């Protein structure tokens, strides 16, 4: 089997070739499935409340629906998270912040749009101050409702969980 990074090693670019080698190794089946298995149990969302669906986001992490069972623990810093949950309306001012938060997240990163406002603006679809998140990020799941029930959020998380375990997530989530 030939590897693309062998040539680089001959050219003496050790750092780059070792990085590529590590990437290549991680993408191989046993390592990759182990990695994805590990990722699936640490789908930590960043604690970034964009709008009022945050009330149900809080209910998802609260005792009755307790999504910590699936490794869903809201975390303060985007540097340690894989999941961005857009909770409701994204205004123009907030969209800029959301983009920055998204850029700071390490890959693989997933975005779930929660609530009608995060899909097509919901009741605010003709407002002058909203942005549709699917124009900014690749979105894995859309959850309808205004606000969605915590079960619906759980449904999206469980499905994402299984998707990650099966390594079926797209290239977009893995890049950058």
């Amino acid at each position, binding site marked *: 089997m030939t590897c693309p990074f062998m040539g680089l090693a001959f050219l003496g670019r050790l750092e780059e070739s070792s990085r590529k080698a590590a990437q290549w190794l991680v993408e191989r089946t046993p390592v990759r499935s182990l990695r994805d298995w590990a990722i699936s149990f640490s789908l930590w969302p*960043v*604690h*970034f*409340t*964009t*709008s*009022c669906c*945050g*009330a*149900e986001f*809080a*209910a998802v992490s*609260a*005792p*009755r629906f307790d999504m910590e069972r699936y490794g869903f623990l*809201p975390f*303060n810093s*985007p540097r340690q998270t894989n999941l961005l949950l857009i909770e409701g*309306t994204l*205004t123009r*001012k*907030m969209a*800029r*912040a959301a983009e*920055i*938060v998204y*850029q*700071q997240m390490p890959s693989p990163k997933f975005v779930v749009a929660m609530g009608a*406002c995060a899909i097509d603006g919901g*009741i*605010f679809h*003709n*407002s*002058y*101050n*909203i942005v549709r998140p699917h124009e900014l990020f690749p979105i894995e799941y859309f959850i309808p409702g*205004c*606000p969605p*029930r915590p079960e619906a959020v759980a449904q999206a998380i469980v499905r994402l969980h299984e998707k990650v375990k099966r390594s079926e997530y797209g290239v977009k989530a893995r890049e950058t």
Partner: protein
Amino acid sequence: MSSSVMEARLLEKEGDEEVYEVFIGPQHPASGHMRLIVRLEGDVIVGVDPDIGWVHRTMEKLAESKEALKAIPLLERMTIIDSQNVTIGYVRALEKLLGVEPPPRARYLRTLLSEINRIASHLYGMGLAGIFVNHSTMFMWCFGDREVWIQLAEELTGARLTHSYSVPGGVRRDLPQGFKEKALKAIRYMEKRLDEYHRIFFDNPQVRARYEGVGVLKPHEARRLGVVGPNLRASGVRYDARLLGDYGVYDELEFEIPVREEGDAMSRLLLRGDEIRQSMNIIRQVLDKIPEGPILAEKYLRLIPPKLREPALKEGRIKFPGIFANLKLPKGEAVARAEMGHGEIFYHVTSDGSKKPYRVRVVTPSFRNVILFRYLPPGHRFMDLPAIYGSLDYFPPEADR
């Protein structure tokens, strides 16, 4: 973090090289979708500039572009954790314009849901106040117990948070079977829990150390700043929009308006606990006194064809008359005030005689309380800021509309 989101930097202004500016938010581990620009001298806050508008969804403009009835679900989205109280003011303003009065049973039902929502809203505020000082137990307990009240509201209205329950002339759903027993059980449970909240949180010396004597607001200042809600009453001013007797059945019930004198962060928290007790007292009385009768004004009820009306009423719900899709507002204006969990909400609806309101002005309690972020923290240590923030029970989507 990137420079525009959260950053600490030295201000290069002449004369105040000692002042640091700290940007907190909009992505921060609190409830907030807001940014606080805090100016610090060493560890002491010298100024706070609340930068709001991150959730400005232009509700006043959109309400002008929709038929009157459609603005109810729209305005409800300001505070989905307290949705009956936020819409009742608008519904009252419409009723004043249209000249309709809800029948007694509808007024009792509105009061019932208002108080259920108030309890849920206060529990939300108390839970967040707990997590602000790293007391996760309080967050978990409050949010767990809030589910009891949400479940109760769901069985009454059919939605967890966004009830859209009141319509001009009445309410949409009647009491379901066995509601009274369920509500009484919830009340008895909550009364026990409030005592335990005291033991684990309110009387906990660690919590007291963080909240007591912090962010004191004097009665005179509270009046001049136009502060509303529990934040006002914790400063010794006895004012509550429920006392106006403009909506609900509060003039027929016996209840107290809890007032505390200290005006610090701790008293603002304790006052919410007192209000939960009073709300439960109100719910008890409402369930005892609720009269039989229609839940929608006769004016609209007779517009529904009987073939449709009777089976629906038997199920405990109403059908809308067709006129609701195109409700024509008479020319004029109406003012309405209502008490939400966070404070008083103010509506001024102007109509030019068409189907859409000409102008809907709404001033929300959180928007009136924003001024406290500027007023209270200066002079305190930086670590007191979360305690002050937590005690104000500020809900950003409500302030930004």
